[in-house]
């Protein structure tokens, strides 16, 4: 069953890619404007400039996004677990999470940059600020939704707190945390783009905006394509890990 599902997924991805490329090509063919180059020209350009101009930007962006998400998991998952496992902690932190959740954190960018400078720290903080809440809430809810019977049957076996954690909490919540991470990824890439337009000369955000200012549309489109592929690659990677670890579902 799982293999059929994942084959469907791959077919879906391939189908979407073909449709998007075709529509893009059609538009470029119909309008014949320099601001809409054909996908063929863009992909040829990527092949040409990737190793000379683009690679370093890709690596910077990849590093920032992986760092940001890893940090969000390191902060969010333990906090969520604590909130899920201890009602006291939940009472203390839940209002804070709910209150700050709808605040548009992107608007905090100037504040973060004033406090932490224009460098890497601010960029990481921005990604974490936006992604971490989703991960906190998901891990907390995952822990809270584990049926009491499961804890009871382990407690009657004399399991220690650590064993409860490794045998129950971790495996029960893993899949949901991965799903939350995957969903947060889309937002994280957008934030990354935005933060990379400030105070840096590296990253796909910088590359795209720089190409735009230089009126180099082939490079600009190439940047957008590569950034999208990067997001897709990370998305798929988490999906594969999730499938591998959650075959029991």
């Amino acid at each position, binding site marked *: 069953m799982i293999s059929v599902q994942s084959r469907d997924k791959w077919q879906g991805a391939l189908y979407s890619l073909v449709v998007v490329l075709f529509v893009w090509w059609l538009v470029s063919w119909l309008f014949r404007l320099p601001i809409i180059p054909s996908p063929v020209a863009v992909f040829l350009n990527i092949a040409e400039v990737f190793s000379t101009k683009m690679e370093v930007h890709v690596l910077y962006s990849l590093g920032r996004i992986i760092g940001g998400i890893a940090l969000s998991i390191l902060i969010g998952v333990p906090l969520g677990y604590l909130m899920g496992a201890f009602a006291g902690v939940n009472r203390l932190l839940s209002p804070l999470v709910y209150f700050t959740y709808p605040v548009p954190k992107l608007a905090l960018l100037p504040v973060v940059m004033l406090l932490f400078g224009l460098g890497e720290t601010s960029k990481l903080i921005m990604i974490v600020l936006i992604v971490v809440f989703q991960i906190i809430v998901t891990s907390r809810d995952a822990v809270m939704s584990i049926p009491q019977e499961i804890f*009871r*049957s382990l407690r*009657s076996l*004399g399991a220690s707190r650590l064993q409860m954690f490794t045998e129950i909490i971790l*495996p029960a919540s893993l899949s949901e945390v991965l799903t939350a991470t995957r969903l947060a990824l889309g937002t994280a890439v957008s934030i990354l783009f935005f933060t990379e337009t400030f105070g840096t000369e590296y990253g796909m955000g910088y590359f795209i905006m720089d190409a735009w200012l230089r009126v180099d549309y082939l490079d600009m489109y190439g940047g957008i394509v590569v950034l999208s592929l990067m997001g897709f690659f990370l998305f798929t990677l988490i999906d594969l890990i999730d499938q591998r670890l959650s075959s*029991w579902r």
Partner: protein
Amino acid sequence: MIAVKDLSVKYRSIHGEIQALNKVNISMGTGDLYTVIGPSGCGKSTLLYVLSGILTDFEGSVLIDGKPVNPRTQRIGLILQNYGLLPWKTVYQNVMLGLKIKNGSTTLNEDGHYLLKQLGIDDLLKRYPKELSGGQQQRVAIARAFMLKPDLLLMDEPFSALDAITREEIQELFLATWERNPVNTVFVTHSVDEALYLGRKVAVFSPSPGRILEVVDNPCFHQDKRFSDDYFKMSMHLRNLLSKG
């Protein structure tokens, strides 16, 4: 030896204190099989939670072989109505869970193999619980409990979610397994028939707050005499006790 003396349990709720158990006394010899029957909400499950060490806030004393209940040092098997299996573990990992926690061992010995074979789950070991029927899941739960060679086996309406035919099969299987490994067992049920078929002794509980009305020595244990005089008399006696409260 299980000795429960003057066990009382109170729950605190928004409506004030609720007395769940009221001075319950039980004394079980070694290798005894008790069924506990009573109306819903009479505190049968509470009794099991106390015996399994999950509930520690009680009055009175509960001793297993002369020592207070402690799941860390004693071996307690618990089988629940919804099986209590971990959905992310395979059948094998579920069966070995008790031993893993108690001894840190995850290898199956010969006795273990035999047990799995007897319960008919030896060819399901790689499956996950969601791939099993209710009856199969309950066999896994039984295997997990017996694998532990427990000092005390506690069963909370374990077969009530199964259909009638599967239930009879599993009852039979449970008795066969129990007779090979006679451990002290407290079996909570709400069915008079099940109490009479599976219990060497039947403890009848009053409605809430639960106390024991009578402990009956059961001549019908593991005998299909559902139409015999003995069975009829016992059944009437239990039903009378239950209806009077």
